[in-house]
């Protein structure tokens, strides 16, 4: 580097070090701010996922015959509401800023329904107060155990 025997630092060196410091710190601090945002985002995501699983589980644990095919929007998927026209009612824990919708389709072979494909879609706000809506969906198969 510098083979001078001077004891002080030149301005250039100070500027260089400050610059290096800035260079290093900038991404660091940017990381933190995005990290912060990420955490907030994950909280909403987590709640959306929890709501999705809650809905999916209650549908899947029904006997196969009670899983009625169809498309269900957020207006019918409410706590205490009827699932299809069947006797089964929905049961949800309260969740703000999220909307549930679901689609149940048959998978058939040789005239028999072997599986139901259940797709659950959750729309949720990215962060409290924000107006960005994000969507998340989950799907699975339920087998007909009565064959």
């Amino acid at each position, binding site marked *: 580097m510098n083979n001078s025997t001077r004891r002080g630092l030149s301005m250039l060196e100070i500027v260089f*070090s*400050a610059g*290096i*410091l800035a260079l*290093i*710190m900038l*991404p*660091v*601090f940017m*990381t*933190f701010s*995005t*990290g912060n945002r*990420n*955490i907030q*985002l*994950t909280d909403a*995501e*987590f709640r959306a*996922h929890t709501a*999705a*699983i809650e809905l*999916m589980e209650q549908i*899947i644990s029904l006997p196969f015959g009670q899983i009625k095919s169809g498309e269900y929007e957020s207006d019918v998927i409410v706590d205490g509401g009827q699932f299809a026209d069947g006797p089964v009612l929905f049961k949800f824990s309260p969740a703000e800023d999220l909307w549930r919708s679901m689609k149940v389709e048959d*998978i058939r*072979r040789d005239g028999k329904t*072997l*599986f139901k*494909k259940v797709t659950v879609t959750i729309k949720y706000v990215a962060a409290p107060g924000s107006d960005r809506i994000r969507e998340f969906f*989950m*799907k*699975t*198969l*339920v*087998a*007909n*155990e009565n*064959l």
Partner: protein
Amino acid sequence: MFAVIIGTVMLILAVSLYSFVGHQHTGIQSIVNGEIAHFLAEAGINSSIGSVREAIGKVMSGTSGNQQLNQLLLNPGELEDICINDMLDASWNRDLEEFAREMDKDASIKVDVWLRDFSICETAPTSWADPAAKDGYLVIESTGTFKNSSRVILVKRKVRVGSTIPAWMGKFSLFVNDAARAGEGGFNIIRNDYRGMITDGPKPLITYNHATPDAPFEAGNMGDILREEAEKDIWQRRGWIWMGGRRSRLNLCSGAGDLGEIFHFYDVSNPNIFSPVKFSTPADALPDSFSSSLSIPWDKSSSSVRQVSYRFGHSFVLDGFHDRSNRKETDAMYEGNILSTGEKNAYSSKSSILHLFGDARKGYQSRTRVFGNVHIAFPRYASLEVKPEEPDVEALFTSVSPPPLYLLPSVSENAWNNSIMIQDIMGRQVGGPLLQSGMLCDSYADYALLMSRISELPYAESYNSMQDVYSNKAGRVFPSDAGILAMDNGLNLEISRDQHMFFKGRPTGQSLLQVIENRTQIEIDSINDFWKRFLNDRGELELNAIVSIKNSRQLDMQIPAAGKPQPMVVKGGGMIILQQGNLVLRGISCISPAEALTLVLAGTGSVSFSSTQPNHVNVVAPNAELGYGSKFDMYGSLCVGSIYADHRFQGGTVRFRPGQDPTTTGYNRYYKVFIDPKDSFWNE
């Protein structure tokens, strides 16, 4: 420099938080993917469990089953985890893949069937080391995969492989835990005549320790049997006998027919010309008075008094016990007071109900190794060989018919004196000597060696005497000098085949029960439940498993049950362990030699036979008593705690099945593979 350091530290902190948050971000995602994968796995198992169960059932059904799977399970030694989809024709996976793709291109489901976690379960030669007995699981694994997460749902069924032959009992014909329960001579209750005929009262239980010519399957070939009899070590291939407990004594039955036992000493191949063998005592074993002629007054002293020179020898004849001859009502063997009343009181005149070495017919003599403190008793009739040395007396002497017989009577020490008269058995005056005991023997000790008496021999050593008979040994001595078998209390038995040691140690009823209980595959509550589950509508037993019946009401188990056809046909053999109660056998027949049924009675109680139908069965009841009932025929091994013998005992036969002997490869036919029909999943 300082800045660089601070910067680096903060960078590290930032990166860790970011990765933590980022990880959490992906963590949530993978939790959800994991859930979906789990649901897929559930869908997989729910949809295919029916076809998987069917495929497994097809493979294990009937006696054919799937060769490959059976071979795998019955192979001796450890079994590594192995996927058996190919053996089951796993068509369900193709469909599952299709359905999964239909749902999402990143989804997949597959269902595999594995044999896992098998371990050899009988490994200790001190109890029983079976090379093929193993426990493990048949596992149905459904794997759901979504994006990068996989979940597996396991459905397990227990698999057990166990032998239905009761361990070392497969090497024995008869095992009696406490033989002398009714006293040392408790078995001696049969009244037979000289020829071994029995007209009333109790009858003998005869054990045949090899395959007799009349066995329904595995019948022995007469030529082979006769040839094998002459082999010194034939006991190694025979069913053994264990008479445990204190000292017991079996009075040998005389006679050469199908109930007689005198073949222990004599060749009885032609009963029509049966005659006892006379053993001549060598001169060097006799007192000095026998070595030279003695001058003694003859017995025809009514005509003239005369001293005649006689030469004496000694011989004896062995016989069995007989209670009465066909001419006399009294105890024929004690007739003529040759055997003393003291002996009569000690031994009685009745013979034993246990005939351990088969019977006297050709092909049915069945000597084997006998364990325990058990002896045979038999009368030894000693006679004096009298030879008058003066020709005229000799001519007179030999012209008498029947020939003069000078039996030496049995005398106790107290009753001995040197003036006891020794005369012709019929008391005739035939030109023989007027003999008194003191003329031949100086002391009781000498006389005791010569006199008639009831002898005892360890049962195991009668094997050696029979060897002399079979090998037509010239110059036989008694007891035999062939030292093949000696009395053995069974402290150290060894059963092995090829290089594998099945058992080493002392067999006990308790440890046998333990080994058998550990093989239990199915537990049933009551006898009724048992019949409902395993008896088919034709009344045949399709067991194919090792079942334990609790029977808390301690009912009697009749086999076959009352009202069902006799004998009960065993289509699929196995083992039935009755925890409590009594066993009553009424006739059991196996359709093939590869099937065997073993009945185990774990508690105290009784085993009895209430029908004369044959029973192809092994009975293990070391705490139970064999009760009286009808005469029975059993093809298999019998293990009981004790035998109740009284005038109602009708006897029968126990025939060892060499096909079940663990030292032969025939033993391998009797394993049963049990796959629990219930899955863990449904927990019904």
